[in-house]
């Protein structure tokens, strides 16, 4: 890994960082990846039947129920009220197209 990889990741993760922090991050990454790389030595060929986790999906109908809103009379207003910027009952964001 090099500094330009850290810069690319910061871009992808949408995190502004100083160049000093990027350099520190590179050092930390080398140490952390050096540690986690030990899993590459685990041989998975002997027991391929358990490779996949036994997780299953649990679905429900997509309907609004009182337990969803917890007796909130105006869930839309509750949702909008916590936004940093709002106008006329809508969340306000910066324009995307210039």
């Amino acid at each position: 890994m090099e500094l330009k990889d850290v810069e690319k990741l910061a871009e992808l993760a949408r995190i502004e960082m100083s160049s000093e922090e990027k350099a520190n991050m590179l050092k930390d990454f080398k140490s952390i990846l050096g540690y986690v790389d030990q899993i590459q030595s685990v041989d998975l060929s002997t027991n391929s039947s358990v490779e996949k986790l036994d997780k299953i999906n649990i679905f429900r109908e997509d309907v609004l129920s009182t337990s969803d809103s917890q007796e909130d009379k105006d869930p839309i207003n509750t949702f909008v009220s916590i936004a940093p910027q709002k106008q006329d009952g809508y969340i306000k964001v910066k324009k995307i197209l210039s």
Partner: protein
Amino acid sequence: MNLSELTIKKATIGLSEKKFSARKLAEDCLKNIEERNKELNVFLEVFDDVLAQADVADKIISSGEANPLTGIPLAIKDNILIKGRKCSSASKILENYTASYDATVIKKLKDAGVIFMGRTNMDEFAMGSSTESSAFGPTKNPFDLSRVPGGSSGGSAVAVASGMALGALGSDTAGSIRQPAAFCGLVGMKPTYGAVSRYGLMALGSSIDQIGPITKTVEDAEIIFTAIAGADSLDATSVDVSPTEEFSWPSRPSLRSARAGENSSVGFTIGVPRDFLSEGVDPEVLKNFEESLEKLRAAGCKIIDISLPLVKYSLAVYYILMPAEASTNLARYDGMRFGFSAEAPNLLEVYKKTRGEGFGREVRRRIMLGTYVLSHGYYDAYYNKATAVRGQIKHEFEKVFEKVDLIATPTAPTPAFKLGEKIDPVSMYLSDIFTVPANIADLPAVSVPTGKNKDGLPLSFQLMASIGGESALFSTARILEKYLPAGDLS
């Protein structure tokens, strides 16, 4: 009242016999907070309606409708939502966020008539093992102010250890309940994955997180666990695992008999993964661990050596899967919908500045790491490989649980370490080496205090059970607890 020795169980009896009121109990907790919160930095906020909550509880008690948690003061980790109150995950990005709904565990505790004392300090977004990554300064260990209380639920542990609440809720993704409980001389319990609903818990690693109790005694942990456990339609991963109800998972006869009573863990077989304990463990921790094993043997348990060759990879698996899940979960903090929003000329700059300024160093590091292990070209080598190894580790535990009822290790390789001691991230991560396997394998686990080292720092013993084996954990942990000298609870 000496709150450092008062258990939830004793308080419930005291309240029902009218020896004291819920108001008096809450006032005494507030007095301890007044005296020591500044020094220890336990609460990010002490709620201003504590006494009003206590008065409501007193009315319930007078009406004869009380249950074991009515009027009991509890502290809540700052990543669990209480409607209408601030909830920040100890992060600048959520400093002024107010929760718009109750977490399911909070709803259950409200129904039980609990008094919520306040929200406790933690590592930012639960990312850490020392509470030092909090954006609002570290919490101190009451046994030695130069040491950490453990983490990430450090504030919750210290609240209980210093008599500011009788019990607390924490969350545990790699040991964040059990390790701070260990460092503060308390009982910490991480339930089976899915046993407690996470609806309203700020997500870190969704395939790993669990909410659980921190208390003075095993019995108290069981009281809180029973109150918060159960399947919830709002958390699709939740299942019914209750210590008091008939439950189909434990296949071994000895586990089934554990429900019969307190002493039924006599005859349990406890496995010790010797290979796993051979390196990096403090000699006093190891000696205390062996002594605890002897006590269990003397009480009628059978202790055998077991081999778990893959378990040593749990921490490496964790540091791939958790950042991957965290980077996804924390994508929601974009400065648009809630929380902090930085000023910038365009949308992209708002995102980058908000996240750059709002998240602390450890959080930025883990989001970046998660982005890396999920990125094109590295996904197979890291995320997919780690998922496959996790499956193998789970399989290895399942095989061992055909031979043993429980698995024992120390809770942490050392007692509480010094503030600022672990600068290198990997050395900090290694503090979770014994607690993380239970998270990776979805298992329930409990940490129990087992005395102190020569410097007076608490030492702790961990027990893990198979999925749904909570009752075996509680009954065996109680045996160890009997050996603690009276008055050594905190």
